[in-house]
């Protein structure tokens, strides 16, 4: 069930039960980040304007607020999504990708280069950006082998629609750890995380 609403001047309803839904979404994200490659499911299904999937919208409603600078990628930066983020999250939507705390993009609209986001500093690696990438499917794409913290031996990721240059940039990023970009892939109401600590093998 995708809860998409056409833009009618109304931003649509966000979480039905704000506190509980936000907490449940946060827990799902936390678990996903702790177990890279494991697919989680967002129980709350907020209404979201096209082209946002429920999981993408839930992350936004859960994490974005007036203190987070949010950058929207191609295909999202339309009026309906703009109104949605402004109304429900109250977050500043900015044009500079480098200044973003969070970036939301569609894999189908062409992914932005990873290097254009803030990877933090060695003193403050937590100042880096988190990238939320909505993909056409979480399975059936190019197989990626994952190792690192939170993974006992190895895990596998096969999100669809992610270009090779992204994986190349993601692999290069491992050299600058603890700096780096954390990534969450979303599709429908499901999500999977790829934190910076995870090593990938294409």
């Amino acid at each position: 069930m995708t809860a998409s609403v056409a833009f009618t001047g109304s931003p649509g309803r966000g979480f039905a039960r704000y506190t509980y839904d936000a907490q449940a979404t946060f827990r799902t994200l936390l678990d996903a980040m702790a177990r890279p490659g494991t697919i989680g499911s967002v129980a709350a299904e907020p209404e979201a304007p096209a082209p946002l999937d429920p999981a993408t919208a839930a992350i936004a409603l859960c994490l974005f607020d007036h203190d987070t600078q949010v950058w929207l990628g191609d295909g999202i930066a339309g009026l309906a999504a703009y109104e949605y983020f402004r109304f429900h999250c109250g977050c500043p939507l900015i044009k500079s990708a480098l200044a973003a705390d969070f970036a939301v993009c569609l894999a189908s609209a062409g992914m932005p280069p990873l290097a254009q986001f803030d990877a933090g500093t060695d003193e403050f690696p937590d100042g880096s950006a988190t990238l939320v990438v909505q993909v056409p499917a979480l399975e059936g794409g190019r197989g990626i082998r994952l190792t690192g913290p939170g993974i006992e031996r190895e895990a596998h990721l096969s999100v669809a629609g992610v270009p090779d240059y992204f994986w190349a940039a993601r692999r290069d990023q491992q050299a600058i750890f603890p700096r780096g970009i954390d990534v969450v892939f979303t599709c429908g109401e499901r999500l999977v995380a790829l934190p910076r600590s995870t090593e990938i093998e294409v």
Partner: protein
Amino acid sequence: MERPRTGETAARQGWMSVLAKARADDVLAAWEGLDDKPQYRPLRGPETGLVMIQARAGGVGAKFNFGEMTVTRCSVELDDGTVGHAYVPGTDGGHAEAAAVLDALLQNGARRALLMDAIVSPLAAAHSERRRTRAMKTAATRVDFFTLVRGDSE
């Protein structure tokens, strides 16, 4: 950064202000008394938070933070897609919700005149009456200070 208050915006600011400043019981009574209540669904809230009130000394000085105020806000959408908002003082979610639905209804030109007469005008009158009574009570306790000439300046 104030937007010009003209036409439609000014009118809406007017009734939103009246609905917010009215007593919660009065707004709820007006809502209960309304025939032909519309179907609506919540978009956000009612939820309560704090708003920092800013002021300028004498209305012209530098801006300073006067203090925080408890405010409850609510946004609703009518079946026809009209969105209504309300920010009301206090913690009464019912007040905020009723005010938000009334804000949405008042945007409909066909119903506005009737609603203005039946609900907004009486609420505005009650508010100015409360202000007047309060001003009178305050005025009765007013003390004027005079500085007497002390005669030592010669």
